[in-house]
């Protein structure tokens, strides 16, 4: 094939790609968006709650442990 100038080359490249058809998603994406938002929320397991409760209990029973706990945070 002969050498093409920039304009011809641009057309040559463009012709290799069929035009994009369909400007809209095939379905409503909002439900997927909601799922993604929901998945990203931090979740606490029962074990986390047990740990927090134990910490709170320890602080109530032995307030002297608070500085030690804060130091280890």
């Amino acid at each position: 094939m002969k050498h093409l100038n920039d304009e011809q080359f641009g057309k040559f490249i463009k012709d290799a790609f069929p035009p994009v058809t369909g400007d809209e998603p095939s379905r409503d994406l909002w439900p997927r968006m909601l799922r993604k938002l929901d998945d990203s929320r931090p979740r606490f397991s029962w074990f986390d709650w047990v740990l927090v409760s134990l910490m709170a209990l320890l602080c109530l029973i032995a307030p002297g442990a608070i500085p030690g706990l804060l130091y280890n945070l």
Partner: protein
Amino acid sequence: MELQERFINGDLEAFEVLFRQFQKEVYSWIVRIVRDPGTAEDLTVETFWRIYRARARFDPGRSFGAWARRIATNVSYDHLKSVRKEVEFSEEWMGETPPDPAVRQDTRKRIRAAFAGLPPKLRLTATLALIEERPYEEIAESLGVPVGTVKSRVFRAVRILRQKLKELGIEQ
């Protein structure tokens, strides 16, 4: 309170309104870059996810659409970086045969393969400039770079493509 201000404050209903208002525009922009509808849907959701996370940085005095497009471009760019170079644009989704019969199927495949081998930044810019024929100003705004940078990237992409097509014996 204005819709965009409510969105900045994390109001989910305001976000839904903006999502429904702009999802088509965002999808349409992304599908032109990645040229695969399934991937474009995934990336549209990813774009709005990033938009929601970055809502505190949105300036309500500016266009939401332009901001969304810029994020969509970044998301598309990240996708292009993550996929293998050899992966061609989705064949099964390729539409009708282009009007120019002189460009044969085999040649078109090789051109697409050469195009897919471009560095992601050049590929993204060249897709919008050469295939979609979007104005340089619009591309520059979506990439957050000066128009001169867009021109330079297109120039470099064309140079690389010419070289590759010469190696393949497609151009002299």
